[in-house]
C-alpha cells in the first residue's frame, strides 16, 4: 500500500468572513487574503510535503479557484517546485479539472516538464471539477462530461505521440500541429488517475484502465471498486489489483487517543468549510443531468443548497450531517468519522486497525490518500501527524498482505457475474 499526503492549502484566516458573505468560494473578495498570510500557508504546506519525502510518504496536490478553502490555483505549480525539492516521493496531481481548462496542450506541456524534471515521478489525475469551479473558469456547465473525455483523450494523445505533429479537430478543441516538447520521462506516459463517486464514472474509468479514486467516499467505495473490477473482467482484462484504487480519508493520529481526536477535528475543518458556497454556484444548470434537476424541483429546490455535499453514512446506514457549513459537523464525534470511514483517528494502533478494516471491506486499496493537514491545523501538528503515521503505521501497511482481501473481492465480483448471468 502506497501512501500520499494531501492538503488543500486552506487560507483559514478568511473563514470567519463567510458568515457575512455566505460563500467561501467564487464571490469572497480577495482583499480578505493577506498575501503575507498566504505566503505562510503555502510555504508551510510545501515544507510538509518536503518532510513527506523524507518520511516515505508521497505527495498529492489539487487545485481550486477563487476560494479561501484552497490557495492552490494550479496543481502544476506546487508540483513543479516539489519536483526539485523532493527526491523519492511520487508527485500526484488529483487533479486537473480538465473540462474547465481552456488550454489542454499547455497542460500537457507542463505535465511533461514536471515528469522530466522529477525524472519520472509524476502521476496525473483528471477530475470533473466541482460545480462551483464552473463560474471562475466561465466554462459551460452543459456537456461537461463530453468535454472532459475529449480533453482527456487529447492530453493523453499529446503525451504519447512521438512521431511528429498530429491534428485534433473535435467538438471541443482545435489544434492542427500538436507536438509537445519535452515529452514525458515515463514510457509511454505517467499513470492516470480519475476521481469519481458514481458507478457511471467508475465504469468509464475501468474502460480506460486508469486508477480510480474515491474522495471521502466511505463504505460505498466497495460497490464502486467492484463495479470497476467487473467491467475490467467483462472487457477481457485480468482482475485489477489494489494499485488501481485510491481512497482519500482524513487523518488525525496522536500519541494518545485524545491527541489523535483533536487533530482529526482540526483536519475536519475541511468539512465545515468546503461546502460554504453561495446558492447560485452550487448547481449550475447542465452540471447534473436534467432528470436529476427535475428531482430537485420536486423538492421545490431550484438552485443549490450549501451542504448538499458529503452525505456521509456509517456502515450501519446512519447519515451524518458533516458538510453543511459553520457549526455543522461539530456534533459529529471522532467515532462517527471512523464509522463512516471518512476519518481515521486515535493512536497508531487504532489507526492501523481502522485502515485494515476498510482495506478488507473494499478489497485492497493500493493507494491510501491521507488528508493529514486541513482546516486551521498548525504546521507543528501537521508534521507530527505525518511523522507519527510514517514511523508507527506505514511500516505495518508496507508489510500487510492484501491477497486475502483481493481474493474475497474476486469471489464477490465473480459471484455477482454468475448471478447476473443466471
Amino acid at each position: 500500500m502506497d501512501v500520499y499526503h494531501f492538503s488543500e492549502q486552506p487560507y483559514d484566516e478568511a473563514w470567519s468572513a463567510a458568515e457575512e458573505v455566505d460563500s467561501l468560494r467564487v464571490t469572497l473578495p480577495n482583499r480578505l487574503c493577506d498575501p503575507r498570510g498566504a505566503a505562510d500557508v503555502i510555504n508551510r504546506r510545501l515544507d510538509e510535503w518536503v518532510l513527506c519525502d523524507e518520511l516515505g510518504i508521497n505527495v498529492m496536490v489539487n487545485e481550486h479557484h477563487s476560494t479561501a478553502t484552497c490557495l492552490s490555483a494550479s496543481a502544476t505549480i506546487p508540483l513543479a517546485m516539489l519536483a526539485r525539492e523532493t527526491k523519492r516521493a511520487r508527485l500526484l496531481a488529483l487533479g486537473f479539472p480538465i473540462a474547465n481548462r481552456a488550454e489542454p496542450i499547455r497542460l500537457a506541456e507542463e505535465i511533461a516538464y514536471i515528469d522530466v524534471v522529477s525524472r519520472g515521478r509524476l502521476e496525473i489525475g483528471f477530475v470533473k471539477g466541482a460545480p462551483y469551479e464552473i463560474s471562475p473558469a466561465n466554462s459551460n456547465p452543459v456537456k461537461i462530461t463530453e468535454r472532459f473525455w475529449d480533453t482527456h483523450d487529447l492530453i493523453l494523445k499529446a503525451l504519447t505521440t512521438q512521431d511528429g505533429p498530429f491534428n485534433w479537430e473535435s467538438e471541443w478543441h482545435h489544434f492542427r500541429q500538436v507536438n509537445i516538447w519535452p515529452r514525458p520521462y515515463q514510457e509511454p506516459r505517467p499513470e492516470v488517475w480519475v476521481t469519481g463517486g458514481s458507478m457511471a464514472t467508475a465504469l468509464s474509468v475501468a474502460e480506460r484502465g486508469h486508477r480510480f479514486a474515491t474522495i471521502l467516499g466511505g463504505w460505498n467505495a466497495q460497490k464502486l471498486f467492484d463495479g470497476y473490477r467487473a467491467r475490467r473482467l467483462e472487457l477481457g482484462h485480468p482482475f485489477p489489483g489494489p494499485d488501481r484504487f485510491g481512497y482519500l480519508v482524513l487523518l488525525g493520529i496522536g500519541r494518545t487517543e485524545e491527541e489523535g481526536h483533536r487533530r482529526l477535528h482540526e483536519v475536519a475543518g475541511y468539512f465545515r468549510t468546503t461546502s460554504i458556497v453561495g446558492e447560485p454556484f452550487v448547481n449550475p444548470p447542465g452540471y447534473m443531468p436534467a432528470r436529476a434537476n427535475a428531482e430537485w424541483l420536486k423538492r421545490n429546490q431550484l438552485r443549490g443548497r450549501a451542504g448538499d455535499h458529503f452525505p456521509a453514512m456509517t456502515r450501519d446506514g446512519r447519515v451524518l450531517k458533516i458538510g453543511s457549513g459553520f457549526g455543522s459537523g461539530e456534533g459529529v464525534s471522532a467515532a462517527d468519522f471512523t464509522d463512516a470511514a471518512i476519518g481515521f483517528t486515535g493512536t497508531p494502533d487504532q489507526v492501523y486497525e481502522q485502515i485494515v478494516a476498510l482495506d478488507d471491506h473494499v478489497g485492497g486499496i493500493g493507494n491510501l490518500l491521507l488528508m493529514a493537514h486541513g482546516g486551521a491545523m498548525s504546521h507543528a501538528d501537521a508534521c507530527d501527524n505525518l511523522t507519527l503515521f510514517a514511523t508507527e503505521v506505514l511500516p505495518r501497511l508496507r508489510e500487510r498482505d492484501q491477497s486475502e482481501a483481493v481474493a474475497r473481492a474476486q469471489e464477490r465480483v465473480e459471484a455477482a457475474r454468475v448471478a447476473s448471468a443466471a
Partner: protein
Amino acid sequence: MSDNGQTPFEKLVIDGVTIELARAGEGPTLLFLHSVDGIDPSARWFELLAERFHVIAPWHPGFGHSELPPEFRSVDDLALFYLELARELEIAEATLVGVSFGGWLAAEIAVRSTAPFARLALVDPLGIKIGDRESRDIADIYAMSQEELTAHAYHDPSRRSRDYSTMSERERLAIARSREAYTYFGWRPYMHDPSLRRWLRRIRIPTLVAWGASDRIATPEYGRAYAAAIPDARFELIDGAGHYPHIEQPDRLAELVLEHAGLDAPLPTAG
C-alpha cells in the same frame, strides 16, 4: 399539463428534429418564440393572441420536450432551424414575436431572412452587447439566488411563486431541460452574439421593440439601444412589467402586437 399523459402540445418533425409545439386560433399567422419560461397555452397572453391570430408556438430544440440535435451549438443553428420550420409549415406574411431569449432568436432569424415574415415584435430581447467590456448589459442570472432572480425579472415578484412539487414529472423535466438548454446556448458569450448588433440593420420589416419598464435583467436603456440598431424600429415601454411582459401585462402586450399587425379591433376584457 396533467399526469394523465395529455398535453396541449403536438409533436412534429422539422428538418429531422422532433419538437413539440402549440397551435391555436385562426387568422394571420403569428410565430411565437418563447423565453426560458416556455409555453403555457392556458396563459392569458396565449389566449389573447389566439383570439386574432393563428398562433404557432414551438418549444425550441433542447427546451421542454423538444429534441436537441448533437450538432446544434449556438443560436445560429436555432435561427436556421426556424427558417426551415417556416419553410416546412409554409409560414408566410407572418408576425414573428419573441420574448427574452426568444427575442434574441427572432432577431437572429430576421438578420438572416425576413422572407416568411411581414413584421417583427421583440419583447425584452437579449442577444446584443452595448456596453464596454467591464459593463454587464445583462444581469448574471447564474450568480443570483432564486429570490434575487425573481426580483430582477418581475415588476411584482410576489406574482411568481410556483409550486414545483405539485407539477407532473413531465412538466418538471421540461423545466429542467429548458434551463439546461438556455444555459447551453447563453453561457458564453453571456446571452449575446457579438456580431448581432452589427447586423440588426439588415432587418427591414416593421419592427416593434417592447420593453417592461421594470426589467432589471436587461434594462429599458438596453432596449432603447436595441431598437436604435434596427431601422425605423418603434420602441414601447410597458408599465407594470419586468422581463416578461407577456406574463405581467398580457393585455397591454397583446394590444401592442395587434396594433403593430394592423388588427386594431377591441380585445375581450380580462376574465
